[in-house]
């Protein structure tokens, strides 16, 4: 199959861009901002995709690098009217089909396939049953891989939330599998579908009706990506949506907090998931003043580089530092986000810049209001 077969109707998008050339997507693309060449912006990648379709561009190492360095943040999509990231994902799928994939991406695939997580961690590390014993329920928490492996403070906050509020979510423990979004984003469709099938089977067998996620990647995978291939009948909520619902119904007793924080929009939650207001509402509910990154917030928020942190740490770090500076320019001393990967990326950026700033998840903020 050639790229045209993967893009199908999306080929028209390439020609629309070729006609338009408006460049709205160029300057702000986080990868272009670091690497300089337009190649790395959406317009550049649209040109190259057209080049592949028309047979003017070969599948070189450089081309592979260009497509995999995109963070899929979707800023370009918000300022355009085309299916930019869907195109880039399909180009990746095509590259995968030609075995044109960077080594690190293959290693991460192998890690998911063999250890059910992208970090080559032991499987038991990602099912922290000693903290969160498995429990059947119609509404479950889906933990994902990153929180139990690299951001355990969120897990502890979640546990505290459940204890203090008396609201207990179910948890599948060893029957929860890596959501596979990383595989989907890289273009390993077959392996992604295997993960999806395992999870859907688990959900069915456990009679799950509602799934709450903390990780926006899991949120998108379960909510949007699985349904591209399967009929699914469960509902998915990001933790911020879930908390918003509980607070609306007055189900949580908490102590009012005070002070200013700046909220960082995770690309997967905001732009891909369209969850924009709920996290802010929850934080305001808790008594906090939510500051906004100047100019770049909500649908026009800028990427923190988190999605490529495991693949291109240096590039990710440059992107993270740019975002950190924007967030800090508000004067806030605490950054709150709704994505553990963004939080890791921003923490790393703060370390690199040698600034002291708290980077917290909404769940962590909530838990401090419950003590």
């Amino acid at each position, binding site marked *: 199959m050639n790229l045209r077969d993967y893009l199908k109707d999306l080929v028209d998008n390439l020609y629309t861009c070729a006609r338009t050339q408006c*460049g709205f997507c160029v300057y702000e693309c986080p990868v272009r901002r670091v690497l300089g060449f337009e190649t790395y912006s959406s317009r550049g990648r649209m040109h190259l995709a057209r080049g592949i379709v028309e047979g003017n561009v070969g599948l070189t190492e450089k081309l592979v690098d260009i497509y995999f360095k995109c963070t899929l943040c979707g800023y370009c999509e918000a300022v355009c009217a085309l299916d930019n990231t869907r195109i880039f994902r399909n180009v990746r799928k095509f590259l995968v089909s030609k075995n044109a994939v960077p080594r690190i991406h293959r290693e991460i695939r192998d890690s998911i396939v063999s250890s059910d997580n992208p970090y080559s961690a032991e499987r038991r590390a990602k099912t922290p049953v000693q903290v969160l014993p498995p429990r059947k329920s119609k509404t479950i928490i889906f933990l994902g891989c990153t929180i139990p492996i690299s951001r355990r403070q969120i897990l502890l906050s979640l546990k505290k939330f459940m204890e203090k509020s008396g609201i207990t979510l179910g948890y599948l423990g060893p029957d929860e599998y890596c959501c596979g979004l990383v595989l989907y984003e890289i273009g390993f469709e077959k392996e992604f579908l295997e993960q999806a099938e395992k999870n859907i089977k688990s959900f069915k067998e456990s009679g799950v009706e509602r799934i709450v996620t903390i990780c926006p990647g899991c949120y998108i995978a379960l909510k949007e990506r699985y349904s591209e291939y399967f009929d699914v009948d469960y509902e998915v909520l990001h933790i911020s949506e879930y908390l918003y619902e509980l607070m609306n119904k007055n189900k949580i007793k908490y102590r009012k907090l005070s002070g200013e924080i700046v909220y960082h929009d995770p690309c997967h939650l905001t732009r891909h998931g369209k969850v924009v207001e709920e996290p802010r509402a929850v934080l305001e509910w808790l008594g906090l003043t939510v500051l906004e990154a100047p100019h770049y917030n909500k*649908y026009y928020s800028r990427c923190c580089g988190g999605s490529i942190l495991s693949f291109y740490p240096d590039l990710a770090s440059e992107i993270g530092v740019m975002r950190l500076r924007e967030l800090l320019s508000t004067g806030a001393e605490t950054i709150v986000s709704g994505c553990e990967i963004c939080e890791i990326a921003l923490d790393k950026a703060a370390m690199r810049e040698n600034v002291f700033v708290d980077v917290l998840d909404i769940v962590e903020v909530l838990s401090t209001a419950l003590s």
Partner: protein
Amino acid sequence: MDKEVLKRVYSKLVELLGEERVSVAIEDRLPYSRNWNPCTRDFRALPDIVVLPKSTEEVSQVVKVAYEYKIPVTPRGGGTSMSGGSLARGGILVDMKLMDRVLEVDKENYVVRVQAGIPILRLNEELRKYGLWFPYDVESKAVATVGSVIALRSDGTFNIRYGKIENHLCSITVVTGTGEVVELGHRKTLISTSGYHLHWLFISSEGTLGIVTEAVLRVVPAPPHRDIVGFFFPSFSHGVKALVDMLKRGVLPESANLQCKNRLKFYTHAYRAKYGVEPKVPEWTEAVLFLSFAGDKDVVDFMMKKSREIVREHGGEPIEDREVLEMWWTSKHVAIEPKELRFPWEKPFIPFKQKWPDSQRTRRFGAAGVSVPVGKIQEMYRKYLEYSSKYGLEVLGMNVYFQHPNSTHVSISFAVWVGDSEEEVRNFYRYLKEMAKTAVDLGGSMSAYYGDGEVLAGINVYEHGNALKYMLKIKEVFDPAGIMNPGKKFGESRWVE
């Protein structure tokens, strides 16, 4: 370019800028292969090398290498030129967008010094921190750079109040075609009678004299308030007369656009996206005039009221539907403006539904951008209908942009829909040529905001006659080897037969 030469030039450039900022890879060259002028599906113009300088010194070193080997240099900002102005003909393409720093904000004197690769929108984000504004509003501001609006003398939304780039340009730093760095103009002032005003030569020079690397621009305090009005008129002449009368009587708009009914549709994309229908326009309407006013609220309110009175005296009727006005404004000006740069009523476009790509899914916007004396608008409009029909191009509409402070000197975009086929593209350029000549015949100019580029190169002798010879001499002074953006302004058009 000869392979051996290319190799040598490449290694010299890498020595200067490092491997990360020089590329000969096809993957890095292809993204620069187009501009916004209509072309066929397979069109591409490739540079041999792309470089990303960060300072005047680096630009100078790059041009010195080009001068030594006599190879073309094409400066490029956002690449949205409508005349193929930043299409390379081999050689070195200089992407200016890493030169995007604001070097000085002189608040007391209302001037700023910037690197020329900064996009207009980015500059305004920075200026807003100081309560300042660079009121040069090209619709492509998200990527169009300061260097480009100098190199083209682009149109801006607010130019009936603030004027084109010459009204903002105090001085520039340029790298000439030999690589020499020269400061032109008058430091931080617009006012001087000393020497020749060589910085003005760089206005509309399209990179043919050298590369602008820094600019000192006058900026203004951001206005406290803005509002908009719109009017239907039975003809363009009615609309123009009303505006002339307003200016005479001291009603001074901040922006003025006069357009035909068809063009209105292009600017109500946001309205359609929201309501799914076209706004209502009275049967008898030929022209629609939109004005904005800015200043203290009471002043603005007074001007708005007065403008309504004057329009009524001239047979026009106000647009009562506020949504039409606001959505029009979204399409024309607000688009991508972040909240910090908007007044509360100014709405951005709906995310994921930007008008430009959305409107060009099957055909593209192609425009003849000319100027004619204001009394000739009606006649030029007739010619537009005639030529577009002659070449089988569907009318997209006309927009008259008032571009000179408090006067009715105009730039006009006569747009048509153009498909991708060779025949349609060829017909577009035939149409463009007739429009260009007619504009000159009517006492105007064939290019009002996009330079000559590759499109009007050669055709422009119709406008300039033997003056073109003198222009070439000026070019030789700045660019003795003829390497600066060759094929633009002079020589034969790549596009028009």
